[in-house]
């Protein structure tokens, strides 16, 4: 038992790093699921999409910032497709996401040149290695500090965005579509915009993660939605009474808690193959222990 906790303690820095990077993913899902009330499964496809695009570009020698920009753009395109499928073709939200997620598997494989596993050489320039910023930082804290800066930047941008006229309308779209229409705004366009932003973020996370791991593997998206959702729910539900905390803050904290629980489970000796069951149980526990979001009103009788 003691050695398990010691192992957990040893793994804390890595848990923190992973938590911060994955917070970007959770923030993306926060936008679709929490704010827009749209269950977006595209995430399982757009997450590895960002990874594939970023890795493919890094292997070509493209700068890490540009690679991440491209990854984000690719995610936005994926979100746009999901949005168009849902709004124009009037396909249910859940199915729109599933369609995109399935299509993206093949697309991601193509982007990765047919390889299910790509590794980035240690000498390559990534966000976390061999660049000017990294050389300034002390060895062991490089990943932590860079991830922290990134997450804080993204969080501030999202917080500001949610306070704008556009952000207010986005929140209204998820809260009550009728009001959006009554305000003479196109609710379909608002949904598409939300999907674009969220999937851009998710793909950015995929890009950042692959640059940190120096590894892209085709199945990295499996379970991404579940992880992100669990993080959002843990954060938002357990910190409910702290109303003054913004949803972005709660989401980031939720991700860190999730990763900590995960790391604890592994340290306690649970086999890697059992981790999905652990995630499911964690999810179940959180959802049943707290009352979840109030049901949304759909339309008049």
């Amino acid at each position, binding site marked *: 038992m003691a050695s398990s906790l010691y192992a957990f303690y040893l793994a804390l820095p890595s848990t923190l790093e992973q938590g911060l990077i994955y917070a970007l993913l959770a923030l993306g899902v926060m936008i679709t699921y929490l704010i827009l009330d749209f269950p977006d499964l595209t995430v399982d496809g757009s997450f590895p999409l960002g990874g594939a695009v970023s890795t493919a570009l890094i292997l070509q020698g493209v700068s890490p910032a540009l690679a991440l920009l491209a990854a984000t753009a690719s995610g936005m395109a994926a979100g746009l497709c999901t949005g168009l499928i849902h709004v124009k073709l009037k396909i249910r939200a859940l199915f729109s996401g599933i369609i995109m997620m399935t299509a993206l598997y093949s697309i991601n494989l193509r982007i990765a040149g047919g390889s299910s596993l790509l590794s980035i050489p240690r000498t390559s320039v990534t966000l976390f290695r061999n660049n000017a910023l990294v050389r300034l930082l002390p060895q062991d804290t490089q990943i932590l500090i860079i991830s922290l800066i990134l997450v804080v930047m993204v969080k501030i941008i999202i917080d500001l965005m949610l*306070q704008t006229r556009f952000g*207010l*309308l986005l929140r209204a779209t998820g809260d*009550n579509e009728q*009001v959006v229409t009554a*305000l003479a705004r196109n609710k379909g366009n608002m949904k598409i915009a939300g999907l674009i932003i969220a999937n851009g973020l998710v793909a950015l996370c995929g890009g950042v993660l692959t640059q940190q791991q120096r590894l892209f593997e085709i199945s990295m998206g499996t379970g991404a939605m579940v992880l992100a959702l669990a993080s959002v729910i843990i954060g938002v539900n357990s910190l409910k009474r702290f109303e003054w905390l913004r949803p972005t803050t709660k989401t980031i904290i939720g991700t860190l808690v999730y990763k900590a629980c995960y790391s604890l489970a592994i340290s306690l000796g649970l086999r890697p193959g059992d981790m999905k069951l652990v995630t499911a149980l964690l999810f179940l526990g959180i959802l049943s222990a707290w009352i979840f979001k*109030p049901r949304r009103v759909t*339309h008049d009788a």
Partner: protein
Amino acid sequence: MLEMRNIRKIYNPGTVRALCLFEDFNLMVPQGQFVSIVGSNGSGKSSLMNLLCGSILPDAGQILMDGQDITKMSEHRRLKRIGRIHQNPALGTCSGMSILENMALADNKPKRMNLMPGVDKKQIGRYRDLLRPLGLGLENMMNARAGTLSGGQRQALAMVMSVMTPLDFLILDEHTAALDPKTSDIIMELTQRVVREHSLTALMVTHNLRYAIEYGNRLLMLHQGGIVLDVADEDKAATRLEDVLGLFTQISVELGN
């Protein structure tokens, strides 16, 4: 001015349940008129409102607003100049957002959507002034979530939101049906005041025959997609509740209600 010409609407066309609701329906509502619409269930009251607002489209015919043909216009574009209050108080406001944010949303209606701050702090005073006359205490709860308000408070808020920015038409779709009698009265007073103050053309669908008589200067009774009673101005003033009730009962019995 609102006009509906030769409107035809068939529900479930081509199926066993096909129902021809409107066949060559015509209606003209002049500027500034306040119309009360009553009718039995299935008479087409709500469908009429939906057709006007654009949430359903007619199979044939035209809808004109101030002379402009809006038959093919999308719902959200029509609602630029039309305000609609629904029967369900929850539909008019965003429950997860505060009163302040809801009003800011309404205030932004005519403005360009961009990345400027959504809530203009300087307007809070003006928002309070708009809420005070309601007498519901909402002006002291600016940060309360709309979801915590009572049905009547939400309807009142929805009304204030509708008329915060320039509007031509107001559609009231059984907007007091879900409220208790006292609150209903308050909301009706508010409705009257709002329509007068902003010189709106208003259509009010209601189940409450008393309100239909008391408010507005035109009374329409619908039955199976047709108008069976249409009295305005002096004729309406002269109409008594018993007459309307008698006719209403007659058509209801016909339907087996």
